[in-house]
């Protein structure tokens, strides 16, 4: 995931939800990474899930299917 311009992040309300999403994404063999929430997106001290833009639909489906509550998805 070297080229960050090809990536987006999912922002969550709780870090537990972020970790839950990470674990399901890894089980689906999607390349993801937990990173600090970028300052321009939120003033929160939490973590968000970085993923490749090409996997966006898969990530959205996974969040929906596993009923993981999230705040929003932003390109970075």
């Amino acid at each position: 995931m070297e080229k960050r311009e090809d990536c987006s992040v999912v922002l969550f309300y709780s870090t537990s939800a972020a970790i839950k999403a990470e674990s399901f994404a890894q089980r689906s063999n999607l390349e993801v990474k937990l990173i600090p929430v970028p300052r321009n997106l939120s003033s929160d001290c939490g973590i968000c899930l970085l993923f490749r833009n090409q996997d966006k639909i898969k990530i959205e489906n996974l969040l929906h299917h596993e009923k993981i509550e999230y705040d929003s998805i932003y390109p970075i």
Partner: protein
Amino acid sequence: MIYLDNAATSYPKPKKVGLAMLDFLEKIGASPGRSAHRLSQEAGRLVYQTRENLAKLFNIDDPLRIVFTMNVTEALNLALQGLLVSGEQVITSSMEHNSVMRPLRELERNGIEVEVIPCSPQGKLDPEDIKKRIRKNTKLIVLNHGSNVIGSISPISEVGDLAREYGVLFLVDAAQTAGCYPLDMKRDKIDLLAFTGHKALFGPPGTGGLILGERVEVKKLIPLKRGGTGSWSEFEEQPDFLPDKYESGTLNAVGLVGLNEGVKFILQEGLEKIRKYELQLTQRLIDGLKEIPGIIIYGEDQIKNRIAVVSFNIRNRLPSEIGLKLDEEYGIMCRVGLHCTPVTHKTIGTFPGGTIRFSLSYFNKIEEIEQTVEGVKKIIEEEKQI
């Protein structure tokens, strides 16, 4: 040394419990859910894994509906104090531990109606008796699943059906059954399940939780405490989502890592196998004690209606004196007295003297049970010779 006080705290634990805790302290150590660095994330992942394994064990869909607490007492307090509002009624039984009875007696002073359903001296609860007491303002039924004194088991499935039928919430105190008796939140129709980590789940003390079923509205359950959660940090108000709403302050990650290994051990061994072995031990203990003249055993005759907890008395002898002799002369550790539940002892007719309680675990050996029976026999014979 024979340890028969597993209903208080289980000992020993599976080897991996302590090893994983040491490994966590040495190699990870950080706060889960607080910072974004790799060690904090790793701590968070392990805590999440613990939720997942517990979700598997109790058959729930969303691991984030597990709220971690210090123990079952805190979980029960969260449920009772967080749900009940003045003018509402709560139904419970005469087999409850003080971890339910004391919060309820306090709530009673604040205008909540507490209805205690009497059980038989064997600890049997008739669900029909609950049905008769359900009223318009009944909010909650709270029941002890397995008695910590006589090992009797409550008919939770039947009561769960009743609760659904009348639109009442159902809280189960699984202090003595989580980890050694099948519990399924869906099948048993449990709305709130309170458990502790340090008994049959083989975790360390300082771990436990409350699981919220789908019928529990997070909006309507008030937290016991408020504070930092690592989320929503821009706001001075408590978050309203799970599990953060109820998990303020740094979690006991090292303890939860230990609990995770305890739960994994149970999932690997299989609950049926654990249950079967514990019943064999219990049967042997009861059969052995029954043969000794002057012994009174309390609770159910039918072994299948029991967990591995056996209470008894010896005619004309004080439980405290027997407990001391068992420990000092035979190295057998048990618990005597009232076991934090005066209402149970009133129900079974042993208040205020109490009983001698042996509580077993999957790690006890059949030889230990035989030695224990021999020990009790000798204590009675000694007395006769004097």
